[in-house]
């Protein structure tokens, strides 16, 4: 089964002014993604926008895959305007994934903003006692509230403005949580904006908390050829599209 396909848009549902969920039909027999993996999407025949854009597999079945997308610029604008029946180019699944937890680990799933798209599937796909820490600017920037309600585990919401849940960052809240409960065997799975990642990294290194963080970098090829998407790690330059997007916190 090739990772390069034409895929039909099944539906495209706006969540807010900027965010939407795009559902693509998977060709029969496609590989299923793992949590943290992504696809590279390209929706036009013109060359502006030119390059494919990477998006995490947010939710999937054997027949379709959902992407939770936030409009940023030209590429995401094109995706936002897709309608059922349109066809687009799909390359993936790509990249590595969040390694499944072993045994009786406590899963601390940490998401900031649109980072929820990358980690949400962990709650469904990986067994274990999971807590979701999900933060955003304010309550209306917290997406997929219905799905979150449906999730049977513990959910901790945080907002910068305190309009819902904890007032402050997810990393602060995680710290409180850990200080209170000191879970014995915990593992962090995280994705979010740069500021959150930086704070989380510092905190995890301080405390020796183990886990994995999904990173973003602009991509050209998405297949490891161009060396465009690298991050500097303690093990040298690593390609986010191949050796990533998920990295153990130790190397960051």
């Amino acid at each position: 089964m090739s990772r390069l396909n034409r895929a039909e848009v099944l539906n495209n549902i706006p969540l807010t002014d900027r965010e939407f969920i795009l559902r693509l039909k998977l060709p029969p027999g496609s590989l299923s993604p793992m949590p943290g993996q992504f696809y590279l999407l390209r929706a036009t025949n013109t060359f502006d926008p030119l390059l494919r854009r990477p998006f995490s597999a947010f939710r999937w079945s054997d027949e379709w895959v959902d992407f939770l997308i936030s409009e940023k610029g030209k590429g995401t604008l094109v995706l936002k305007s897709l309608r059922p029946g349109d066809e687009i180019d799909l390359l993936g699944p790509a990249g590595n994934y969040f390694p499944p937890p072993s045994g009786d680990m406590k899963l601390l799933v940490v998401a900031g903003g649109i980072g929820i798209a990358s980690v949400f599937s962990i709650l469904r796909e990986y067994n274990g006692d999971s807590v979701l820490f999900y933060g955003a600017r304010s309550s209306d920037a917290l997406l997929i509230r219905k799905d979150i309600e449906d999730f049977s585990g513990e959910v901790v919401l945080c907002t910068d403005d305190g309009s819902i849940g904890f007032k402050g960052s997810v990393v602060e809240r995680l710290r409180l949580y850990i200080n209170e409960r000191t879970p014995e065997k915990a593992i962090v799975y995280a994705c979010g904006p740069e500021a959150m990642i930086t704070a989380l990294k510092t905190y995890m290194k301080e405390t020796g908390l183990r886990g994995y963080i999904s990173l973003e970098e602009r991509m050209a090829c998405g297949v490891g050829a161009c060396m465009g998407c690298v991050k500097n790690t303690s093990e040298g330059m690593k390609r986010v599209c191949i050796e990533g997007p998920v990295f153990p916190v130790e190397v960051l």
Partner: protein
Amino acid sequence: MNLTVKIGKMVMKNPVTTASGTFGYGQEYAEFVDLNCLGAVTVKGISREPRQGNTPPRIFETPCGMLNSIGLQNVGLEAFLKEKLPYLRGFDTNVIVNILGGTIKEYIELAEALDGRVDAIELNVSCPNVKKGGILFSSDEAIFRELIREVRKNVVNSTLIVKLSPSASSILSQARICEEEGADAISMINTIPAMAIDIESRRPRLSNIIGGLSGPAIRPIGVRMVWEVHKTVRIPIIGMGGIMTAGDALEYILAGATAVAIGTANFVDPTTTMKVLKGIEDYMRNHEIEDFSSLIGGLIWDREGR
């Protein structure tokens, strides 16, 4: 239908190759492209020692193009010979190795080590000369000439290609120097130095500030340069710069390119090389052209205009 072309000693079963740095070491695209079907695989620029390249961010998209400042991250000569070349040798295709150095000596060592083991060596001259205070090999004609002359002495069994930079002060006199110094072929164009700025942070989009512009945006510049060089020298040209379709490739060919290389287009559609090849075949069939070489430089024009 005969698609064979000759670049120096290297016989290509068809005129389609890849642009250095856009196709990894071949392996990365083997999932999408049958490498046996390519006229040649041109690999990422190789230096004597492995290189880490520039600090990210290294790429940025611009209208119909992209900037890159990879900074020539590569595995280095030794790992290339041990890990990458044997893989490519498993395919029925030519291997063109793009090389780069900080001194003429480095280039010579690379050429010596590769001569006879690869089908062609492509000299990337857009590198800073560390001995001459970091000026580019391509920006001083005397050093440029010396570089080609010295490398030529050491490339006996492989084909020697010189890759010209569109930012050279005069691409025509560089082409003449290549011919005079016995280079077998010219490849062109490399990326064009360019820049983009994030107006919110007021910082350059690339950590290296300046990057190379590639993609369809630059194609009309590349086609013009190939045409001018084709009128100036007799050695074959490998044309590249923004080729996305067979039609684009045919523009380069009619302008004077003997072969074409697909670069940025591999990122947009990993199967571009195969589509270009098929499109050239279709075009030849539709126009009842038996021999590909009759298309090379086939532009119809006159001094009065068209």
